[in-house]
């Protein structure tokens, strides 16, 4: 599955320019991903990988250029069709694993998939009633991954997604990404480590 076909979705950005704190992070950046494609954003620290993801997610305003999703739901904006998995897990330590997940499923809306099944897929089904505050870093990451599975969105924006995951977790995550891509999804991932799936490299800034 490669190359955008007719009727499929296509996420693209053209001439993107990002300015943060008065400093130009990058300029004239182009990227594109069709259904089933992955863009791996690479570059040294501070080159603007996270900034690019946040631009796509609508959490930063581009200083120039455009981002568009063709073939998506016309009623929804681009950020509403994205999942953003940032450095921070968006989990509440006082709530249990299940409460955290069902909250995001209820709040994000759209089509829902079984929360218990998603937890089983990420290997957290034994900890459903445990407060999220007791989870390890890797388990927290797995719980955020379950959010991506419970609420389906065509575009996944992943910031260092494999951080804190063990080898088995990275394999599991690779499988989840392949499933997502096979269903026609798109992934834009900022990463230092290899993702474990076929991807197109987008280099920001100079040589790593």
């Amino acid at each position, binding site marked *: 599955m490669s190359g955008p076909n007719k009727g499929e979705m296509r996420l693209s950005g053209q001439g993107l320019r990002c300015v943060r704190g008065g400093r130009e992070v990058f300029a004239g950046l182009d990227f594109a991903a069709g259904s089933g494609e992955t863009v791996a954003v690479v570059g040294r620290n501070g080159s603007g990988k996270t900034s690019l993801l946040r631009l796509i997610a609508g*959490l930063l305003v581009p200083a120039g250029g455009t981002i568009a999703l063709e073939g998506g739901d016309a009623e929804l904006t681009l950020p509403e069709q994205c999942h953003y998995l940032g450095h921070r897990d968006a989990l509440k330590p006082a709530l249990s694993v299940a409460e955290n997940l069902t909250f995001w499923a209820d*709040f994000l809306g759209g089509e829902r998939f079984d929360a218990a099944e998603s937890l089983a897929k990420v290997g957290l089904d034994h900890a459903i009633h445990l407060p999220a505050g007791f989870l390890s870093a890797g388990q927290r990451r797995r719980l955020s991954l379950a959010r991506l599975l419970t609420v389906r969105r065509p575009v996944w924006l992943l910031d260092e997604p494999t951080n804190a995951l063990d080898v088995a977790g990275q394999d599991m995550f690779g499988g989840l990404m392949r499933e997502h891509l096979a269903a026609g999804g798109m992934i834009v991932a900022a990463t230092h480590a290899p993702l474990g799936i076929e991807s197109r490299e987008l280099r920001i800034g100079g040589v790593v």
Partner: protein
Amino acid sequence: MPVAGGERFPNRRKPPMTALAALIRRDIRIALRVGGGALIGVLFFLTVVVLMPFAVGPDLALLSRLGPAILWLGALLASLLTLDRLFMADHEDGSLDLITMSRTPLELACAAKALAHWLAAGLPLIVATPVLGLLLNLDMVATAAVALTLLAGTPALTFTGMIGAALAVTLHRGGLLMAVLVLPLSIPVLIFGVAASQAVIVGPMTFGAPFSILCALSLVSLVIGPFAAAASLRHGLD
């Protein structure tokens, strides 16, 4: 097998009420759990009001004259105490990013968060008022008047305070800045809240006039607060 994206990732619009109800439920749940803010506010309120008779001395007439003002000050400070965490906690753990991205308008999400905060932290203050009224030598009518004015006025405190809480997120400064920003806005609420309570106890004003203004302040802040907070959060995206 090309399928249109909209069908493969069905994004049927959910009524925003479901999302808002989920947000309110979550915030109340967190506030009530151990380490949540709800109990801290009430305990602070209790401490301030319980200590006051000891500071003022055994003059019962003076105490009942000061009673409404003490209760109002206590409630004001108690509601400010926990308000600075309103958006900060969500900002720190990244929840705010997802809330901003979601299809629920940010204004509504802000309103829902403020409502949840009021239910978890404001309402208990009002429930505690009759008990504390006893300590301040307030009779039944006076206590009821204070409770009623608190019920009408504390939403204004929460919803104007929310603006300060949103700004505090943007400017990366914590509670102090918030107090400086919000206290001036809450002065009218304090003035009319105490005035309405005093009107019942000593006169000579009628209860109706200051109470109506108090309600008006709450209604105005109910409208302006969410928009101002959402605008501030959007502006401060980074």
